[in-house]
């Protein structure tokens, strides 16, 4: 029983990190219908900046996290401006944007693998604080896990507030419903898109640092799998929906950890995707996604 509880905590930890990444995917997809494959690499940059921030540059670790978020937020805006905006203004087919996203992803991975940037090898992360263990109902919870739960909950509440109660949030929702109509209503669509990348990338950076705390190893290609799984989580929950991304991420995290703990570690990557395929077959728009009537 205690062991199950402990595994559930582990699954929650993984799921919460996926959730932060998935939010960026789901917001960008909701607004410009683009699977931003470079998002996983922004997550990686966030991990590096955060870890280097407190280990090499001597910043206190909370400041390092904020720095990582700021750097990645700017990076996200720059990526959108240089790579996706020209295509959008040209009215290019969406597959061109998708391929460009893959190109940006490769660029970040290979560029950061160069020796004068981060180098191709993985680094072991030294935590900025000692790991403490607490007992909850017989199960062990670490302070890293509590930190992850706390940070993610705060960020998600902040995002919910932003999207629901601010003017920018309202603009974002309008653009995601109908970009042309939003433009006609006087909304500066490009600015809304930039802002979406800004927020989404900052969340990914926070996820990156937390991920490095929980699984203390970083390398330039570390973003691929978490990115893919987080995107899958967003699709699972219904892409474009923020609660959906959270739900999907929690399911993915639990599925992965529980499979590894109780069935087999060999197939843990396969189970999450098998769940996705099954869910899509029953609910093609995801668990909480709205599937509108087919347009003719």
């Amino acid at each position, binding site marked *: 029983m205690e062991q199950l509880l402990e595994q559930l905590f582990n699954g929650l930890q993984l799921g919460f990190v996926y959730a932060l990444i998935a939010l960026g995917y789901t917001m960008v997809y909701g607004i410009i219908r683009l699977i931003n494959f470079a998002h996983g690499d922004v997550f990686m940059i966030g991990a590096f900046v955060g870890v280097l921030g407190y280990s090499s540059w001597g910043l206190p670790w909370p400041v390092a996290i904020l720095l990582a978020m700021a750097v990645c937020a700017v990076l996200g805006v720059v990526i959108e401006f240089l790579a996706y905006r020209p295509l959008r203004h040209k009215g290019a087919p969406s597959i061109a944007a998708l391929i*460009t996203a*893959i190109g940006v992803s*490769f660029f970040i991975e*290979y560029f950061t693998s*160069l020796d004068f940037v981060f180098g191709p090898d993985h680094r072991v992360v030294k935590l900025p604080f000692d790991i403490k263990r607490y007992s909850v109902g017989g199960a062990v919870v670490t302070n890293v896990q509590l930190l992850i739960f706390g940070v993610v909950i705060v960020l998600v509440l902040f995002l919910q507030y932003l999207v629901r109660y601010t003017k920018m949030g309202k603009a974002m929702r309008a653009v995601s419903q109908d970009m042309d109509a939003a433009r006609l209503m006087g909304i500066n669509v490009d600015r809304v898109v930039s802002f979406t990348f800004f927020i989404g990338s900052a969340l990914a950076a926070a996820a990156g640092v937390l991920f490095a705390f929980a699984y203390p190893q970083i390398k330039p290609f570390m973003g691929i799998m978490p990115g893919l799984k987080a995107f899958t989580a967003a699709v699972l929950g219904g892409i474009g929906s923020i609660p959906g991304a959270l739900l999907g991420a929690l399911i993915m995290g639990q599925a992965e950890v529980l499979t590894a703990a109780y069935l087999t570690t*060999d*197939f843990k990557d396969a189970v999450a995707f098998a769940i*996705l395929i099954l869910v899509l077959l029953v609910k093609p728009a995801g668990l909480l996604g709205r599937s509108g009537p087919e347009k003719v």
Partner: protein
Amino acid sequence: MEKQSQKQNVITAVLVAVAVTALYAILEVLRRTGLITPYWAQVMDLSLIMTISALGLSLIYGFAGQFSLGHAGFYGLGAYTAAFITKSMGDTLFSFPLALLAGAAVAGLVAYLIGLPILRLRSDYLGIATLGFGVIVKVMLDNSDKISPMMGGSRGMSNIAQFSSFAWIFWLTVLAILLARNLVLSAPGRACIAVREDEVAADIMGINTTHFKLMIFVLGCSLAGLAGGLYAHRYTFLHPSSFDFLKSFDVLLIVVLGGLGSLTGTVVTAVGWTFLLEWLRVVLPQAFLDWRGVIYAVVLIILMIVRPQGLFGGKEISLFGTRPSARREGSGHASA
């Protein structure tokens, strides 16, 4: 009129056959005499194998509009099946052709079984479902030693006989191109194009959309399986990491860069892209070899921004000038 065009068709066919045979003869001579080094000969073989696989995706995505990100999975299924057969049958006269057929058949069968449910999904959702399928195949290959120790699991499958000669690879590529071309120009091919352009309208016009989507998906995946079988018997070593989802992206890049709905574009880009990557390896000074991935990415981004419709933009080149293919300007998946 009718007769004349028929006569012209025969002449064209003969001319093409002569040209292709001549090309084969020249390449074979160059390889025998060593003017094409074994290294470049291997690159050439790889580029042709890539062409076969890319033609499969070109049919599925470029012509029928079904977004698949799991192509490398089918390629891997074909490779492992074919290698398993030649390894267990030994070196008999029929084992290699049989292995190639089986590789294509298994990939096609799996495509049928998985396509039946998931081809109902649209655009990005189909993409992510097929991507998930690709990851599942990769995980299965990682654990294939549990099915048969011969397949090696995550250690890879080694000591496969090198049966894929240049003749096999070249002529099967020609066959694949011919098959794809004839399919695209046939009535079922037009039905698939109609599905790509507007599935609902195609349905209303009486096209059995499920049937044609499934047909072209099975066919395209079989081509991937065939290419996998050739690959296995050219490189004699298989590893699951050669078939992960990033390899599916490689094929997708080729099809999109070539221009959706253009077979010529697919063929030219598959060969050109493979050679470009190898050429970079040769021309870059040792200190800059690590920049290969960066250059690759930058070329990709710039090409997409400059020519979002792909290099050939849906046009075909035949012996007698270019002809536009049935492709509406500016259409691409998932715009709605």
